[in-house]
C-alpha cells in the first residue's frame, strides 16, 4: 500500500490542513533527497533499498523494528571520569545533549529538583508551525514552558521564529524542542538512507556499527544514536529488504526504566513520568515531576542510593527510539558497494549549503 502522506511526528494536531500538506511535502522532499544521496560524495548512491512510502508500495510482508538508544550523551560519558562529572557536564549545555533528547531542569531555591522536562521533537516541525500557525506555537510555549512567554520572546523583529530563543536554548529555562545542531529529523532521514547501503570491503561484508558509520560517513560515530540506527538499518538491508522510517517519521521516547529507584513514601517512581505531547507509541515530550500534593519532590527520589541532583541522572534511564519498517525481504537486487564513502574535493561545502536550502520550508 502507498501511504497518502507523511503525518506529523507523534500524530501532533497543531498544524492546520495547509500545514499538514506542507509537512508531508517536506518529509517527502527530505526522503527523496536522502534516496538520491550526496552528490559531493563518492560511493554514496544509489540508495536503492530506501524508499518514499508515499510513492512506493509498502508490501504486505512489512514488519516494524524499534531502534532504541539511551538518552544520555555518549560523547560526554566516554570523556568523563566519574558519574558526577558527566552529569554536571551534560546538564550544563543543550549543545552537549546530542542523542535526540534535550532537557531542562527546574529547581527550588534550595537547589532541589522539582521538575525535569525532556523533548525529542525535531526543530523542523516548529519552523513550519511558526510559519503557518505562530499563535499556536506561542500557546504551546505558554502551556509547556511558561505562561509568561510572549511573542517577542520567540520571534525577531521581522517575525521570524528564533529556534534557540531564551526559553529554548539553555538547560534551566525551558526545553520546547531540539536545538542541538545534530538533533534534526533531516539528519535522521539522511543517516537511515545512507546506512541502507550494504558494503563489502576487500571481500568482507561490513556488519559492525562503528565500521559501518566510518565507511558510510553518516551521522556522528561518537554518539549512541547514529551508529546504532545505522547498524540496525544496515542489518535489515543485508536481508535484501527495502526499508523506510515508519510514518509518522520522528524520534520518540521509548521508555523510562526506574530499576533501582526509591521514593520517600514507597510509591512507584515511574508514576511521576508523564508524556505530554504525542500519541500512544509516539511520545515526543515527557515531564518528570512529583504532584504538588505529595510531600516530596524529584530531588528526594534516589537512584541506586543517590538523590536525583541532575536531569542527566534521569537521562541515564531514558531510551529514545526511531522506528523502521522493512518489506520485500529477500527481494532486493541492489548490489553491495565495494568501497567506502569519500568526499569529492571542493564539492562538499557547496552541496551542503544547497541541500540545506532545499530542505527549508
Amino acid at each position, binding site marked *: 500500500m502507498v501511504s497518502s502522506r507523511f503525518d506529523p511526528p507523534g500524530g501532533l494536531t497543531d498544524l492546520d490542513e495547509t500545514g499538514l500538506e506542507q509537512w508531508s511535502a517536506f518529509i517527502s522532499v527530505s526522503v527523496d533527497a536522502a534516496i538520491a544521496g550526496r552528490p559531493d560524495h563518492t560511493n554514496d548512491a544509489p540508495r536503492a533499498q530506501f524508499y518514499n512510502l508515499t510513492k512506493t508500495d509498502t508490501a504486505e510482508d512489512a514488519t516494524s523494528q524499534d531502534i*532504541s*538508544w*539511551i538518552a544520555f550523551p*555518549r560523547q560526554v*560519558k*566516554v*570523556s568523563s*571520569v*566519574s*558519574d*558526577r*562529572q558527566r552529569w554536571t557536564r551534560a546538564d550544563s549545555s543543550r549543545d552537549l545533549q546530542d542523542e535526540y533528547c534535550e532537557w531542562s531542569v527546574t529547581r527550588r531555591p534550595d537547589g532541589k529538583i522539582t521538575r525535569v522536562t525532556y523533548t525529542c521533537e525535531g526543530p523542523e516541525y516548529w519552523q513550519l508551525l511558526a510559519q503557518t500557525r505562530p499563535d499556536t506555537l506561542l500557546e504551546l510555549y505558554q502551556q509547556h514552558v511558561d505562561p509568561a512567554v510572549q511573542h517577542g520572546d520567540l520571534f525577531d523583529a521581522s517575525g521570524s521564529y528564533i529556534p534557540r530563543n531564551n526559553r529554548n536554548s539553555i538547560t534551566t529555562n525551558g526545553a520546547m524542542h531540539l536545538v542541538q545542531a545534530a538533533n534534526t529529523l533531516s539528519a535522521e532521514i539522511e543517516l537511515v538512507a545512507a546506512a541502507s547501503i550494504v558494503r563489502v570491503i576487500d571481500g*568482507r*561484508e561490513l*556488519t*559492525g*556499527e*562503528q*565500521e559501518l558509520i*566510518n565507511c558510510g560517513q553518516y551521522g556522528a560515530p561518537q554518539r*549512541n544514536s547514529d*551508529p*546504532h540506527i545505522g*547498524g*540496525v538499518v544496515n*542489518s535489515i538491508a*543485508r*536481508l*535484501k529488504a527495502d526499508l523506510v522510517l515508519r510514518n509518522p517519521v520522528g524520534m520518540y521516547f521509548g521508555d523510562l*526504566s*526506574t*530499576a*533501582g*529507584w526509591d521514593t520517600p513514601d514507597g510509591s*512507584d*517512581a*515511574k508514576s511521576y513520568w508523564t508524556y505530554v505531547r504525542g500519541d500512544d507509541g509516539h511520545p515526543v515530550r515527557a515531564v518528570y515531576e512529583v504532584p504538588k500534593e505529595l510531600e516530596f519532590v524529584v530531588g528526594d527520589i534516589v537512584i*541506586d*542510593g543517590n538523590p536525583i541532583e541532575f536531569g542527566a541522572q534521569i537521562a*541515564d*534511564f531514558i*531510551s529514545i527510539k526511531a522506528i523502521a519498517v522493512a518489506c520485500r525481504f*529477500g527481494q532486493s537486487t541492489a548490489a553491495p558497494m565495494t568501497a567506502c564513502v569519500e568526499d569529492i574535493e571542493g564539492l562538499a561545502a557547496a552541496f551542503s549549503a544547497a541541500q540545506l536550502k532545499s530542505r527549508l520550508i
Partner: protein
Amino acid sequence: MEGVMAAESGITQLASSTAYRFVMGVDSEPTVMPQSQLDSLADPMGVLLRQGKFPLTLHDLLAEVDAAGMLPLQRSYLVSEAGQIPLAETGSLQRDLRFAITRARATNVDLLISTSAAGDPAATFLQVMGWDETAGRFNYYMRLGPTWVWAGDSYSALAPESRGQGCFDSHVNGSLVMKELKQPWLHWQSMNATILLAPDDPLRRNPLYQSLSGAEDLELTVRAGVSRWTGVRLKHAVTSDGRVTDLDRLLRQLCTTTAVNLASSVTASSTVVRSPGKPLTLPLGLWLNVDSLLDDLGLPARFVPPSVPGQLYLDSLVRYDFALVEGEFRQPGDAFFAFVVPEAAFEDIEVVNQLVRRKMISAHFAASVLMVDFPNPVFSPARVKLLAYVPAAATLDPAGGGVSQQVAEVIVQAVDSLPADSPEARFADHWRLADADWRDVFASRIQDYVNAVTLRIGTDQGFDDYVRLAESRRREFKSSRLNEFTLTLPVTNIPPDAPLLQMNEDGTISEKPAQSATEGKAYGQFSF
C-alpha cells in the same frame, strides 16, 4: 555452568514433578526437598513449585508465569561470545547464543531466566533466579532431567561449605551476574552491537528474539538487583544491639577481589586506525577503581582518560599474536571491542558503597583501604593483607564511623613491626590524614598517577608494559571459575606461566610478589 554440567553428569534418575534440593558443597546428591523447606520458598519460581507446577521448557515456564499473572512485564536479552564472529568464518564453532529473560511486576525484576537460545528446549540448560521478598534473598534453581532442583540461595554463596560451588562459581556473592556490565557490553546484543545471525536462522522467528531489549537496559536491572540484595544483606548483618555479624565476609569485598567485571574500550577493535588524530581510549577500570574512589567516596580527582596512539595498539596485536581461539577455530586480533580487562566488580563496589552509606564503616576508612595499592584495582596482594586484621564480628561505635576505628586501630598497632612500605603502614598513613584533608590528598595522588600513565602510554615501552599488565590480569581472571567460556577473552603468545605483573604508582610496572596467589587463596580472593 560448570557446576550445572557436573551436576547433570551425576544425575541418573530423578522423579518428575518433585522438587529436589542440591546445594553443591552441602549436599552430595539431589534429595527430595522437605515439605517444610519447599513451603518456605516465596519467590515466583518457588511459588510455582509449591503449586505443583514443574514447567520443563522455557516456553512452558513463561506460560506458567503468564498464567499466574504475577509478573506481567517481560524483557529478553541475548549474549554470545561468538556473536560478532563473521558467520562465514565460524565453521564448526559453537556460537552458544543464550537468552537472559526477566520478569517483573513493576520496577523490580523478581524472576530471571538463563537458557540457550538454540537447541532442544527440553534438553538445553535452563536456570532460574527468583527474588524472595519475605526472606530477602535470591533462590537459585536449575532444571535437571525431568524436574527442578533448588541449588541454594544468596546466603549459600557466602557460606564456606558452598562458596564457589555449583552456580555460585559465577554468582560469587549471591547476586545477579553480568560480567560485561558497562558500555559497550562486550558479547551482548546492545545499542552498540547487534549479534550476527544468518538470514534464515530460525531464531529470527522466536518471539523472544523479535522483542529483544539491549544490554543497556539489562545493566540497569542487574545494578538494581545487586543493590537490592546488598541492602537486605547489610540490614540483616546488624543486630538490634549494633553487633555486625559476618564482618569479615563483608570487608572481604573491600579488601579483596571476590569477583570482577570485564571492561573494554568503547571502540570496536576493527576500527582502530593508525592515524595519530584518533587515539584509543582504554577502559578506566584498568587504571583504578574510579567507581568507588571518585563516585562513591567522592574524591575530587580530575583527569583526562588515558589514550594510546592507534598504531601502538595495532602493533601490539601483531607482536603478541592476539587471537580469539576455541578448538580449531582461530581469528587473529583482539576481542570485538578493544582492550578487555578485568575491573573491580560492581558487587564488591556496591557492598562498600552501602557499608559507607549505612555508616557501618566511614568513607575515610574505605578510602584508606582502597588507596593502598590503588593502581591495582583488582588482584591486589597488598589489600588482601589488611583483611587479616578484620574480626568476624564487631559492634558499631556509638561515636560514629561504624567499625572503622576498631579495625583501624588493630592495623595501626601492627605497623611498628613491619616495613615502612607495608600495606599496614600505608593504611596507617591514610588513616592519620585529617578529615578535612584526605579526599584532596588522595585525589592529588590519583592525578599524579594518571599523569605518569599518560606520559608513558604514548611511548613504545610504556604501552608495551600496559599491554602485558592487562594480559597478566586477564590470566588471573582466567584462573578463576568466572571464566566460563573460551572466547570470552583473546589469547596471546605470552606464556601462561609468565610472571604476573602489577602497576606501580609512578606508572611503571613490576612483577607481583610470588606469594600473592597463596595469600589470595587464603582469603577467598581467587577461590571462586
